């Protein structure tokens, strides 16, 4: 007998990535062989490689997770649904480093390799994770002429009111980061966006092997094996970044994670973090990253914002603010400009230009994912809130943070 296991309800190998939030999966018999009973009891479990990820299962959208599952599968070929999530605290390091196996008794009848793909602290990446990330990023930029061009063109003064002009600051940047992450994953699917935890020293990030080491002038130096040595943006060779703190053992002077999470239980209070720590994280440097128009030229920008997003995700989990219908989850006060109200589609993914929107919309619609459908090609502000599918499983956006639980 053989069975087929579909992750994220897809037979494609490109969909074999899970996060803490459970992915819908299914199993079906593809070759009944000598089986005569109408139903077989199959045992499902994850087998982890050394230092690999780990997965947990459940049969429905709610209920407890377990390390294995027994499913009653008809031999007719009809699919039986189940759900797989990463075991919190056990993310993958490499693609396919955990295998989901289906057994009939002791006989292996089907298996599929998956990756628990989670956004991690950049300071703690393995050399392999680090190298894959910078390689994908360098290729995405491709001497300044690659797809990354659109990301630089989006985050400029021209689009500043869309990105920074109101309460959609957080959902807009969440969408922007996800778009970039999906582009990186199209180059190397094992990559996820790491975050720079700016309230702690992060000596491993500011090295020649990773995001570079700044000299006194603020010119960033790379090792000869680092592909970021070829970084060029809009004709500017290299990266200008002048830290105003000692990157080897200090961090910027800004609100700590605990202080940020204590800003208040209402989104309109929490979003004050746009100034501190977010703004101060930018301006603790001289160089590109300290001005809106040039910030996205520095890859560090995306790690900085990944941490801003992680703080929001952590706050959402702490106070339960995923539901767009709940007033405390967003700032719905009157006076928000277009692009900052929950039902509005967000620029540039909506392609709307002119009038109250910027004159151009670089980059086209939101990049799609082989794993999830959300947030769609033209995300609305409201689509950015329920990123784990905590309120509606279909809202799951396909990313998670190493220290933010699903439940």
């Amino acid at each position, binding site marked *: 007998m053989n069975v087929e296991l579909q992750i994220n309800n897809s037979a494609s190998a490109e969909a074999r990535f899970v996060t803490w939030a459970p992915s819908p999966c299914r199993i079906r018999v593809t070759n009944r062989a000598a089986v005569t009973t109408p139903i077989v009891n199959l045992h499902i479990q994850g087998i982890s490689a050394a230092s690999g990820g780990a997965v947990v299962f459940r049969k429905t959208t709610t209920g407890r997770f377990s390390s294995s599952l027994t499913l009653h599968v008809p031999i007719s070929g009809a699919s039986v649904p189940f759900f797989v999530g990463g075991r919190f605290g056990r993310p993958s390091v490499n693609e396919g480093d955990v295998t989901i196996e289906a057994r009939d008794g002791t006989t292996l009848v089907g298996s599929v390799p998956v990756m628990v793909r989670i956004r991690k602290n950049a300071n703690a990446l393995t050399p392999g994770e680090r190298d894959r990330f910078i390689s994908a990023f360098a290729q995405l930029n491709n001497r300044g002429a690659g797809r990354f061009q659109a990301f630089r063109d989006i985050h400029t003064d021209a689009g500043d009111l869309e990105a920074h002009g109101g309460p959609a600051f957080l959902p807009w940047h969440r969408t922007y980061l996800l778009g970039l992450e999906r582009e990186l994953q199209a180059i190397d699917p094992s990559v996820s966006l790491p975050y720079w935890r700016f309230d702690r020293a992060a000596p491993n990030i500011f090295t020649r092997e990773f995001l570079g080491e700044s000299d006194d002038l603020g010119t960033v130096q790379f090792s000869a*094996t680092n592909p970021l*040595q*070829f970084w060029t943006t809009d004709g500017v060779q290299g990266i200008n970044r002048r830290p105003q703190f000692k990157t080897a053992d200090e961090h910027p002077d800004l609100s700590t994670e605990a202080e940020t999470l204590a800003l208040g239980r209402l989104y309109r*209070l929490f979003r004050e973090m746009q100034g501190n720590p977010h703004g101060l994280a930018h301006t603790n440097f001289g160089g590109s990253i300290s001005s809106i128009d040039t910030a996205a030229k520095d890859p560090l920008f995306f790690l900085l914002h990944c941490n801003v997003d992680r703080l929001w995700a952590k706050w959402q989990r702490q106070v339960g603010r995923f539901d767009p219908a709940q007033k405390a989850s967003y700032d719905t006060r009157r006076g928000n400009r277009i692009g900052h109200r929950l039902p509005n589609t967000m620029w540039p993914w909506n392609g709307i230009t002119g009038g109250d929107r910027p004159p151009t919309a670089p980059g086209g619609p939101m990049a799609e994912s082989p794993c999830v459908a959300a947030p769609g090609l033209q995300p609305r502000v409201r689509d950015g809130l329920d990123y784990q599918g905590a309120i509606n499983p279909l809202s799951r956006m396909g990313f998670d943070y190493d220290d933010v639980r699903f439940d």
Partner: protein
Amino acid sequence: MTKKPKATKSSKSVPKAKGPARGPLRQFSIPKSEQGTVKQRVAALTEAPLDLCKSDKNLQVALKILRSKDEPVKVRLAALQSLQAATFSVVEFASCRTDYLATLREIAEDPDPELRQRVLGILARDKDRFAQKKLLEGLQNPQQALLPPEKALQLLSYDVHSEAYSAAREIVSKPPNPIAKREALRLLAADASAAPMFEKILRDKSELRENRQISASALQALNPEKLQEHAREMLLDKSEYVDIQATSLTALSQFGDQEAAAKDEALLKSVDRLSSKSSKASTKTKQSARRFLSKYK
């Protein structure tokens, strides 16, 4: 490794204004110089950048501190940092922006070199014509320069104009110091007509390796096919420096034609040599070489 934050919020003894501690309507409060230490005043300035914009009074307080040569530089830099952080909140900052930029221009010639450098950096990223003019004038007349030539070139590269190209070419031919030459090369990486110069520097073994690496990067942008040719040749050249070979290998493995590489026996042999135990290459370079070979063997 982790160092205590330079100023933790809980340790501040700065008097807080009335009202909710973190609420959007909180009043901004900076102790006057006679009322607080420098540390307290720096902390008060940077604690909540958005509060700067919540009233004209707040903004004027911060701008006044930034302008005042009587204030300690640390306090002025904190005001600058906080104002710049507030620019990331576009709507709140909109009403302040004109005054802010005018203040920056006003203090662009401040006696303090750190403040001057940061202010000119902000203006240069904003493509400010006043700052660009000052920086160019400084390159042409070093006695009146507001910043060292290498910094001026770095800042001019944010929005390169032809005048900057000619100033950079002069510095490449007669560099006042090695870093100025490096920054001039980086600026010229945007100039398509500079490609032959970068080819020459890339292959010149007497050049500083940093300049050769910049030339490789510039060629990658200006003429990627040419860089691939040179990278291959430099890998085949047994007398070439191993770090330049590592840069060449990175160029080929990241941006090269994989099919051509797979058929190129001479190249694979050279990379094999780089990966060997007897090679002088770094461990990381050997790993990269092995990874490159693993794709084709």
